[in-house]
């Protein structure tokens, strides 16, 4: 049996490990740098326990144990090389480092991108060598919605996604008009809506929009041996104490149950080992990896296949540490680490006169996709409308966070206590948070900091990033529309409820968004450090090695058997939460390993279309009990 090493156990790594193991063709070793906070994975799902709790001190106040500790593993940041080596050291876009990765912290919005999102450059009149948006590297994806749709569908069932689209007669009916076509309904109906979301959804509906319950990878029913969500409210940043969240560990659980997977946590991969081409013009070949175990001892593990699923930033770092040099024979595109993208989070908050217990529920139960941009089908595309992002409704602080957040108003004494009793950002808040599409730019990138090291003495990633005027303009365009919705909350359906404050904030670049609350804010380094956990790019996939780091199946062009799985492959950053697309794309990558699709020196669109039938065969074979597999048979 062949042996695969998967680096990272998050959304992408767990997907790849599960499929390779279920195929029966691979023995899989999953190496995870962080700790395993679960007990009992691989056995009876109802018996799996974890350390996680409704504990604000552990998961908000103290260095959250699921995250890398910036004291031990700092990163650096600068807006451009003109800043010098760096202007900030600390937590820069840290994603959880733990078994399950980012799926432990997320609140599990499981959104698909739309048809237009994969081909927006063409729709705007661009070409592969002439991006439609000046100053960017905007491009079409080598895979399109029709390729990924079956993979979206199967992952919605593997993980367990609740959502509003259902089957009526033989048809799938979707109440969200902004989404593209679907071959299957959701696995589960939507769970309980939160009042803080329902009031915004009601206002949006009265203004002519169509908000909808947000597809979420959290059980609304007992599902695959796990219980339904109880709406405890401590969701984002907290591991799920009741196991209702569809976290990465559940795919690892499936994988471990095959008996063909070994999971080693606290295993820090520090080098990729590989050989040069065996013949002139041939490809490099990964031999395995070197990692440090929990005692700091170094080990080599051999493999026939290595999949880097340790996030766009860490995959770039590991490649660079291993001598994969952009522009050299190991990385012919020269683009490794470039085109780093986040989402520009733009917030408009509403504070309400009445208590709406905003803290109860799953953070966000409704979204409005109207501002994601024109679409969803190419026929509906209007190039004059800016592409923003979906708007998440709701959001709230917990008590300690609120106490800190109120300290600028009053840090101590009776006045602080009085505002705590009013609980403005715990009980009376509901926001619209737009996850705005971020333009890819070659100058936004990850490289190794020239001096800074982690606790083991290894160079850490440096993020060089600044916003493009496109996303700032799009945010400015949509802020008044978001504010209009919040201002409309209340009668007739919620009489007596009125917003007493409506205004925009921006967590990323407060000073840069026109109309933000105080445009002349201190624009010090801190306010420019991007904080998004939606991390994309660095390993752009493309039809040929001129235009991307990886092929359309995630393979490094210069290697036979080295893959990236995850958000790194994204070509653009459509304004929807990223995890479901990471899951679908990782399924696609794993399927190509199993089918042998890929492996070429370049591709054309027809080659991807031809691969589709072979690729979806993996769904039928390995997840044949799903609606997605039945839809493929039809």
């Amino acid at each position, binding site marked *: 049996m062949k042996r695969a090493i998967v680096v990272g156990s998050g959304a992408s790594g767990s997907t790849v490990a599960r499929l390779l193991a279920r195929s029966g063709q691979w023995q899989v070793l999953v190496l995870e740098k962080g700790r395993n906070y679960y007990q009992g994975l691989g056995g009876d799902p109802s018996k799996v326990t974890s*350390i996680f*709790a409704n*504990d604000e*001190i*552990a998961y*908000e*106040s*103290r*260095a959250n*144990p699921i995250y890398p*500790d*910036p004291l*031990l593993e700092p990163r650096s940041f600068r807006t451009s090389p003109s800043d010098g080596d760096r202007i900030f050291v*600390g*937590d820069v876009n840290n994603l959880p480092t733990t078994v399950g990765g980012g799926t432990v912290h997320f609140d599990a919005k499981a959104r698909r991108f739309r048809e237009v999102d994969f081909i927006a450059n063409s729709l705007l009149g661009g070409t592969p060598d002439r991006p439609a948006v000046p100053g960017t590297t905007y491009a079409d994806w080598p895979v399109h919605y029709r390729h990924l749709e079956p993979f979206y569908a199967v992952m919605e069932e593997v993980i367990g996604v609740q959502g509003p689209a259902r*089957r009526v007669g033989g048809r799938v*009916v979707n109440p969200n008009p902004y989404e593209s076509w679907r071959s299957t*309904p*959701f*696995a589960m109906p939507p769970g*309980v809506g939160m009042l803080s979301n*329902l009031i915004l959804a009601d206002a949006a509906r009265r203004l002519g929009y169509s908000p909808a319950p947000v597809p979420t990878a959290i059980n609304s029913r007992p599902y695959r041996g796990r*219980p339904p969500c*109880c709406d405890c409210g401590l969701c984002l940043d907290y591991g799920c104490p*009741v196991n209702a969240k569809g976290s990465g560990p559940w795919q690892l659980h499936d994988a471990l149950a095959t008996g063909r997977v070994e999971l080693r946590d606290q295993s820090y991969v520090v080098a990729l080992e590989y050989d040069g081409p065996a013949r002139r013009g041939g490809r490099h070949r990964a031999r395995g990896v070197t990692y440090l175990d*929990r005692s700091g001892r170094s080990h080599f593990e051999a493999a026939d296949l290595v999949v880097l699923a340790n996030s766009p930033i860490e995959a770039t770092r590991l490649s660079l540490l291993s001598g994969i040099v952009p522009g050299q024979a190991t990385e012919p595109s020269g683009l490794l680490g470039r085109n780093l993208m986040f989402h520009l989070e733009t*917030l408009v908050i509403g504070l309400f006169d009445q208590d709406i217990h905003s*803290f*109860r529920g799953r953070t966000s139960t409704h979204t409005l996709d109207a501002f994601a941009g024109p679409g969803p089908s190419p026929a509906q595309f209007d190039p004059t409308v800016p592409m923003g992002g979906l708007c998440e409704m709701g*959001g709230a*602080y917990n008590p300690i*966070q609120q*106490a*800190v*957040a109120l*300290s*600028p*108003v009053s*840090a*101590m*004494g*009776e006045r602080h206590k009085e505002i*705590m009793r*009013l609980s*403005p950002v*715990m009980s*009376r808040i509901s926001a619209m948070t737009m996850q705005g599409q971020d333009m890819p730019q070659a100058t936004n990138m990850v490289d190794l900091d020239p001096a800074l*090291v*982690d606790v083991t*003495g290894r160079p850490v990633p440096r993020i060089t990033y600044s916003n493009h005027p496109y996303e700032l303009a799009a945010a400015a365009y949509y802020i008044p529309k978001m504010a209009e919705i919040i201002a409309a909350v209340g009668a007739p359906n919620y009489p007596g*409820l009125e917003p*007493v404050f409506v*205004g925009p904030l921006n*967590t990323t670049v*407060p000073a840069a968004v026109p109309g933000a*609350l105080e445009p002349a804010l201190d624009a010090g380094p*801190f*306010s420019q450090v991007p904080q998004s956990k939606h991390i994309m790019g660095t390993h752009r996939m493309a039809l040929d090695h001129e235009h991307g780091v990886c092929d359309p199946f995630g393979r490094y062009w210069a290697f036979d058997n080295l893959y990236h799985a995850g958000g790194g492959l994204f070509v653009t950053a459509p304004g929807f939460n990223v995890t479901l697309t990471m899951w679908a794309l990782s399924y696609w990558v794993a399927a190509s390993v199993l089918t042998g699709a890929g492996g070429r020196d370049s591709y054309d669109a027809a080659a991807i279309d031809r691969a589709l039938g072979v690729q979806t065969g993996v769904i039928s074979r390995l997840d044949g009990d*799903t*609606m997605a597999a039945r839809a493929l048979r039809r």
Partner: protein
Amino acid sequence: MSWDDTPAGDGRQRAVRGPILDRRRFLSAALAAAGVALVPLRPAVGAGAPKTGGPAGAPTGWFLRDTTGRPLRSTCRAACARIVPSGSDPATDPGADQAGVVDYIDMFLAAFELPASVADGPLIYLHGSYSGRNPYPDYSTGGPSGTYPPDAMEQNGRRTVVPLDGWQELSWRVRLYGAGVVQAYPWASSKWFAQLEANGLAGPPGGLRALYADGLSAFDEWSRQLFGVAFAVASAEEQDYMLESAGGLPVSPLLPPNPPDSAAPPQAARDLFPYLVVHTYEGCYGLPEYGGNRGGLMWRGIGWDGDTVPLGNSVYDAGLEDPAQSNAGFGQEGVYLPVGGYRQHRPVSAPDPGRSGTTLDPGDAAAVAAGLSRPGRSAVVRP
């Protein structure tokens, strides 16, 4: 020595500077570096801090003890009681003192030194999943079952903690004891160690324990200088004056105009203030098992439900057929239970009758929003 081994002792030899910035997504830039959008403080009201008496379980404290010339515990206790004061009737309107915040802070500072009867390891992260305060849900009735999970976090005063790995232990020892402890971890890179100071990554100079010992002593000495009495027995107004001065907050003009040089707050007190404030909030509003917020009493005053798992707020009921939650058309047989709906044990989708009480004043709302939006200097830090 490997990085899983535990070194002994506290070696605080090196000073490092600067807060660790802990960041989250939602509104978080504003939070982690919130600007000081000052509005005039109202005059201090309420009773002064209780002067004597120790909390149950730790009558003399673990690290914060009253010793000759260093009344750390009583000073800390009095200061916390002004940061989150009680109302005129502490029984109905409790504050930091009733919550036992000094115990919270003390157990944190002594996290690595608590006896086995108090915690089964360093009390940094409690081990979930449940406190034992809430029952399991009953999926057949949509309500609470009569069965409670075992009280996993704390049993008979003994806390169950998440054992720290070698990396976490190093990190928390640095935060508490200062960067000097790194010398006990030979596997840690010396280049990395040099950067701790240069980049301000390790928290306050000398660690939080030294910060507290020096800062509380400074408050006490300053009080004797200004008012002739120990901090703990100064009046509430005098204590407020000292805390507000140290925090750079507006103070009511208690002292004569043009105060003498001695009225300038000592640096050690100024360094402590932002940490003391956040730790007081944590001890008031965090899980009781960490030593503060006794019995969850501070949660009630702000309308927070507390920890609610495994019951939660809405309970699935396999027998319920709620048209609004209808399963019709979803999925297919065998994929998930084709019936069921939710009962909201506490309102999630609907207003909470009787919860609202006071309305939020537009002036307060605007001040809150302005505070949220401002990056820059902060009165508090996130250690």
